[in-house]
């Protein structure tokens, strides 16, 4: 019973991701594109929850849906009028884009579907607990990630300073 419910939720999430990501790149109103992107990001968080990576799902919701999307909406409202439509794409450009996308998807899909991965040992229900994540994030041994963590913090500091430098009025 639970298996069936999981599959139904999985197909629902997949449908949301595929439809909304295609709508996000084809919609001519940019605010709508941002909204579709929001749905895609939420459905991705749903994937992470389904794979029992609850911490990653929470991170996805807070940082992507809560932080980046708000930035996007503010930037859109600052730079374009409401209800403004982008002009039509020239057919040549559309053809090149379609060619790149379809060809790439075909090659990737063919490779994925013909390659046989070795059997997975994933068992549903084994949630990754917070203690493991914390120890791996703060440790200095092999397979532990203190140095990247510190590097990220320096990167974020540089990003704050750079953002202020770029965006301030002269």
């Amino acid at each position, binding site marked *: 019973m639970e298996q069936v419910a999981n599959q139904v939720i999985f197909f629902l999430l*997949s449908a949301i*991701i*595929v439809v909304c*990501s*295609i709508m*996000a*790149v*084809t919609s001519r109103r*940019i605010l709508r594109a941002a909204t579709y*992107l929001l749905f*895609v990001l939420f459905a*991705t968080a749903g994937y992470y929850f389904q*794979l029992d*990576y609850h911490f*990653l799902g929470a*991170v*996805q919701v807070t*940082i*992507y849906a809560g*932080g*980046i999307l708000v*930035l*996007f909406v503010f*930037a*859109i409202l*600052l*730079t*374009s009028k409401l209800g403004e439509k*982008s*002009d039509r*794409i020239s057919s040549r*450009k559309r053809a*090149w*884009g*379609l060619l*790149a*996308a379809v060809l*790439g*998807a075909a090659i*990737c*899909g063919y490779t*994925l*579907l013909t390659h046989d*991965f*070795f059997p*997975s*040992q*994933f068992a549903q229900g084994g949630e*990754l607990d917070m203690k493991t*994540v914390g120890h*791996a994030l703060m440790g200095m041994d092999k*397979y532990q990630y203190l140095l*990247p963590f510190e590097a*990220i913090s320096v990167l*974020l500091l540089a*990003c704050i300073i*750079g*953002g202020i430098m*770029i*965006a301030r009025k002269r």
Partner: protein
Amino acid sequence: MIYYVVVSTLMFFAGVYGFVTRHNLLAILISLELMLNAVDINFVVFNRYLFPGQLEGFFFTLFAVAIAAAETAIAIAIIINIYRNIRNINVDNVDKMKY
């Protein structure tokens, strides 16, 4: 497992299509986020299904999300600065540098 990867492939190439065809800088950035997100899904799914005892993909995705946040913030700062200078953000109009 293969279904997850197929979905993320479709998402990635939707991003590629938007990246090639869009004129608006913010729309290009949205397509970029789609592509990054698809790659994140791939890391997590491969980690979870093929190597459930390890955490490499998990942490790679965690750091990728942080870097994506930083990158988006800087990119939006640059875009708003461009808007302040030339009053629109179409890529066709951004072809002059200061020097």
